[in-house]
């Protein structure tokens, strides 16, 4: 049975293919269109899935969509869309989703609509490897629900309680993100990274934004929020509450902003922990599955596991809406076949397109680019790369299938020496052009992780933070509070990345690399050979290791190409990240 899963039309459109209950292919549309967080019908991602599987559209048994358009419409009507000027109303057509699926995706077969949070729940439980588990989803908003409590077991996934819009922890987080001058749906991660620099001096005020209620419930004090009107996330009262006007995008980052971030983080952790305890009380289960955008807050996840009642935690690595397509597909599979999903933990996220050495060679052949060919000698490739990293070089690392989900995990990564004192500033300045305060994440050989970090289990998806315990200085990857966001790497799921870590360990005695996503500021992570070349050439990355080939900046003169690509760049546009659009 072939099921296509689709997330689209809000943020992070994506498509996946589930064959007989096995997740075979998945990709976000943004990677192909190069428009960050592209929400449009995932035509490229869907083509990719079908092409790789050798399927025709007539071979698809069902298309599972990650939301119920009718329920979503109900929420939009209630939010006041009918009272808004006509233009907004015109874009809310109840048949919009089906029209897009039929006309744009060209799909004529059976469609199954799976509720947004059921999709999130399924995306976590069915890929957790747990036989039974409590399921906790937290995001901005789907249809009505923003937070749900459920269980997964042999009978499937069920939600037994939910918190409805506009009460939403995701929107609370986004509102503060916006108040701090970062983009909504894009800057939440930065706020989390900012928190360790702050003191929780505004916890009292922060608690006024959200009142805890009985059971799983909580309520936002809407006096401080303006997102219902669709112009700005926060109301003037929020600034009054904190005693400072909102920070403008390029304004200086002050201690106040860090304190706000910290206070938000503390309050979020309190709430999540309290509600997780409630969920545990209701279910009595040992395992917890999480998904939804808020579940990408790895600091909070760590606290929930450490201080909460659950023994084991699985967070869907694509916890954002992109991952909804997987859950919808899995849910539809169980529903249609009456069979259960295979009980197997998701081992990796390498579900996107790969390119062969032949593809790369063919790409390079008509160019002037000089490269080192390590075809057939992966040891040499890894040793040469490790040496370059040791020399302080910054590497663009393009290997195998692209990651699904928001994190680069060693397939499309920028790598560097974590021991280097100035490496954080260097990469921030030359590639990321981002706020210098945030450290990068470490990738570490799995069985060596415990030597360096307070971590007693694998962390393959960079979804939790832990304390650095070794007495070594790794400034580029360690937070001010001594924490790090670790990815553990084993030889089974990413043998080449593992080999590189081993090679680096061999020559330096350090089994850790700095790992960050391979992209230019404001653009999605690179997908194909051309994207990787463009990112390498137009930034100051020292070296591109692509398949079995190594391209060094110092061996090439790339100025002309840089100039030409600069001219080409301006045609791409990005989404408006200032406010959620409730349509």
């Amino acid at each position, binding site marked *: 049975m072939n099921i296509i899963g689709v997330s689209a039309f809000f943020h992070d459109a994506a498509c996946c293919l589930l064959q007989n209950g096995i997740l075979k292919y998945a990709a976000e549309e943004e990677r192909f269109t190069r428009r960050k967080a592209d929400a449009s019908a995932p035509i490229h991602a869907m083509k990719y899935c079908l092409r790789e599987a050798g399927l025709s559209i007539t071979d698809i048994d069902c298309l599972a969509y990650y939301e119920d358009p009718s*329920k979503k*419409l109900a929420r939009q009507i209630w939010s006041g869309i009918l009272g*808004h000027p006509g233009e907004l109303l015109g874009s809310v057509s109840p048949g919009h989703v089906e029209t897009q699926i039929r006309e744009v995706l060209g799909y*004529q077969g059976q469609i199954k609509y799976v509720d947004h949070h059921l999709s999130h729940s399924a995306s976590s439980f069915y890929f957790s490897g747990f036989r039974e588990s409590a399921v906790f989803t937290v995001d901005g908003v789907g249809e009505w629900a923003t937070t749900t409590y459920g269980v997964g077991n042999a009978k499937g996934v069920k939600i037994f309680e939910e918190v409805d819009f506009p009460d939403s922890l995701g929107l609370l987080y986004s509102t503060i993100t916006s108040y701090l001058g970062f983009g909504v749906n894009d800057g939440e991660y930065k706020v989390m990274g900012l928190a360790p620099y702050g003191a929780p001096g505004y916890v009292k005020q922060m608690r006024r934004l959200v009142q805890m209620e009985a059971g799983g419930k909580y309520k936002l004090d809407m006096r401080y929020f303006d997102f219902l009107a669709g112009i700005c996330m926060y109301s003037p009262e929020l600034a009054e509450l904190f005693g400072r006007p909102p920070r403008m995008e390029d304004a200086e980052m002050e201690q106040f902003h860090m304190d706000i971030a910290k206070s938000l983080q503390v309050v979020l952790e309190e709430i999540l922990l309290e509600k997780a305890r409630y969920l545990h009380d209701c279910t009595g289960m040992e395992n917890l599955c999480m998904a939804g955008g808020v579940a990408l807050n790895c600091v909070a996840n760590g606290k929930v596991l450490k201080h909460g009642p659950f023994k084991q935690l699985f967070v869907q690595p694509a916890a954002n809406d992109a991952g909804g397509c997987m859950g919808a597909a899995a849910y539809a599979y169980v529903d249609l076949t009456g069979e259960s999903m295979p009980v197997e933990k998701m081992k990796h996220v390498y579900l996107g397109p790969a390119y062969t050495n032949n593809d790369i060679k063919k790409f390079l052949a*008509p160019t002037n680019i000089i490269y080192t060919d390590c075809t057939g000698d992966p040891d040499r490739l890894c040793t040469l790369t490790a040496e370059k990293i040791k020399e302080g070089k910054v590497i663009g690392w393009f290997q195998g299938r692209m990651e699904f989900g928001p994190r680069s995990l060693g397939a499309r990564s920028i790598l560097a020496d974590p021991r280097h004192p100035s490496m954080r500033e260097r990469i921030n300045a030359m590639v990321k052009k981002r706020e210098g305060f945030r450290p990068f994440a470490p990738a570490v050989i799995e069985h060596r992780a415990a030597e360096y970090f307070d971590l007693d289990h694998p962390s393959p998806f960079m979804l939790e933070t832990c304390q650095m315990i070794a007495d070594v200085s790794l400034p580029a990857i360690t937070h001010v509070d001594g924490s790090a966001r670790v990815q553990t790497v084993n030889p089974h799921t990413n043998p080449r990345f593992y080999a590189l870590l081993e090679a680096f360990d061999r020559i330096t005695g350090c089994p850790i690399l700095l790992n960050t996503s391979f992209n230019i500021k404001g653009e999605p992570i690179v997908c194909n050979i051309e994207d990787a070349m463009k990112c390498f050439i137009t930034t100051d990355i020292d070296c591109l290791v692509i398949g079995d080939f190594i391209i060094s900046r110092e061996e090439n003169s790339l100025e002309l*190409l840089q100039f030409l690509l600069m001219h*080409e760049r301006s045609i791409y546009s990005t989404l408006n990240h200032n406010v959620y659009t409730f349509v």
Partner: protein
Amino acid sequence: MQQDFRPSAALKPLASELAALMSKGDINNERMKELIAVFSETPPVPARTPLKPASEPAATGNHIGIWQEKPAADGIHYYRDIALQVDWSQWAYVHHIKPKSEKRRILLLGESVARGYLYDPYYNVAIELEAILNESAELHNNVEVIDLARISQTLGGLTALVNSCGKLEPDLVIIFAGNNWMQQLQELLLSMPLASRTEILHTLKSKGLGGIRELVENGSLSKSDKLFESIRESFIAHQVPVLLIVPEFNLQDWRSNDIENSLAQVSGEAGIAWLKARGDAAQARTRQDHEAWLAAVSEMLRLDPLNALGHEWLGDYYVATSNWNAAREAFETARDLVIYRGSNFTPRCNGFMREKMLYAAAKNGMQVVDLPALFKSTLTAGIPNRSLFLDYCHLSVEGIKTAMRFTAQKVLSLLAGVNKPLEAIPASAVTPASQVQAIAHFGAAIHNAHFGQSKELVQYHCKKSIGHSGSVVEVIKNFIDFSARETATIFCSAFEDVIVEGGMRQYEGGLKLAHERQRKLLDIPLAGILATELTAAQPNALEQLADLWVSEHGVGAAPVELTSFTYSTNNYNEFTMSPRRNYYQSRTLASTFHFIAKNEHEPHRCTLTFRTPHACGREVEIYLNDDTTPVYATVANSAWKHVVFNLPGNAVGRAANVIKVRWPVPFPELDAAAAGSLEAALSLIYPVFGEVFSFTVQTIQ
């Protein structure tokens, strides 16, 4: 305002009920109307954040175009702003504009036609005009033309420039523009609220394409009023004369493409009859049977008066019978009927635009050089063609010289007060180097090919190019090389060579040779024509091209997707649907795909997933390198159908092969398209013939 800043919880079930009713789509449901009334009357939670005023477009302040003001003791100098370097190639290759001297100063504003597109920076309109005037006895060496023309200049951009360039203290301002103003229509259509789009749909249905003329005139052209106002305020009010040059179109040689002249608005039986008439006309023309020719063309026009093809063929008929005025009229009608063509709009100044310009000029006290009228009265047959134009609207050297003689005549009158007959105003002695002309025609060959013009016209420009200078051969070889590569052009060393050597600087700095991401053309017909023309200098050029194609694109055991951009088109004529569809749509009777076979006579296997939304139960036929006998035929349906078939080896050639899918004539149900979207409206003009989800080819193991 609600007490707790949120809509009442009591409304939630009602919202759910309404959403469910709306989703069912029963628009006459009484309960639904009731609920809509409830929610329409419930005010939304009011915004408490004041709306920020939309930021004003970056003030041009001390800029004129790309030039930045630098005051000095002797007056204001202007230098190109390094921060705007990305835009430099759009403007004149002039780094420094000095303060006004004792010379008479003329400003030239306009679009690519005023840039001298494809000759610039070596030769252009400003150079020619300045030379004519300085060679004249009256203004001898006392004129400078400041070139402010910009490629792809918009109405808005032009207005802004008019508002800023007065600081250059002109004695005369010349505006040579109008070709790009139709772009406004496209923007207008896309920005319209749904209700207005629906109105367009009804107008289209009742009055046809001509029915939206009014809309164009009232809507899109109203923006040009702003331009004329600015001109009046900036110059005319200050006694600076303004001369407006109305552009002309390549009437005889620029033809509508296969999307534009596809079965527009006729379908079913009428469509079949139109196709028959088209076949009859082509045959009669070949036989030179004038009577049958006219009869068949008249039948085409009777069946579909809005199709440009009928008018073009009528024009051809009148040319053949030396009826020049009638021919001109027919070609002008054809030109004006093409007002929307998806993403690539070939600029043109149509009849009603010209009327509007003439009217506005007269009203505002501007002088006019009306090129259409002047060409009509001075050309032997009165109809401009390839000798005056490099493409649709860009002038050849001969065209520039002729147009500037007309212009100089007016300038002499305005600046020197003399009225000279045209014969007394010779073209300038400036002639672009043969190498420059060779590159211009090579650029024209590419441009014509990329807009789907005929092989014969592309060949003409190739021959002209090589005829002008053999030095173009190296550039052509590089072009053939990078076009054949799968790698994006911008990375190819052959492209870098062209850029470094500056050989194609005339082609928008060479950058025009590159392409958008994943939209690289394989340019099979163009490369074939170029290689053929090269054979004199390089006898094995065609074999080399074939070898390169085979090594880069040769089909092997892995399936190759023919609906990809590379293999499904040879030009940028495209009917753009927004958002783009997940599948290939054909709005023409036949879809042409290409594949590269490694070996002659090698059989291949194809898979095809296709459907015909408006022609159920009719046959789709597949042709290979031949238009007469199909290699495969199957009945089409409105549901996707997946078929597998083989291409017989005997019909397969080495390297480039052409597979044609011939669609049945559609019978669209017009009401089904009345969904109110712009796409639905446009689909009425350009109906879908067939759709292909996937079409692969591979060798047989």
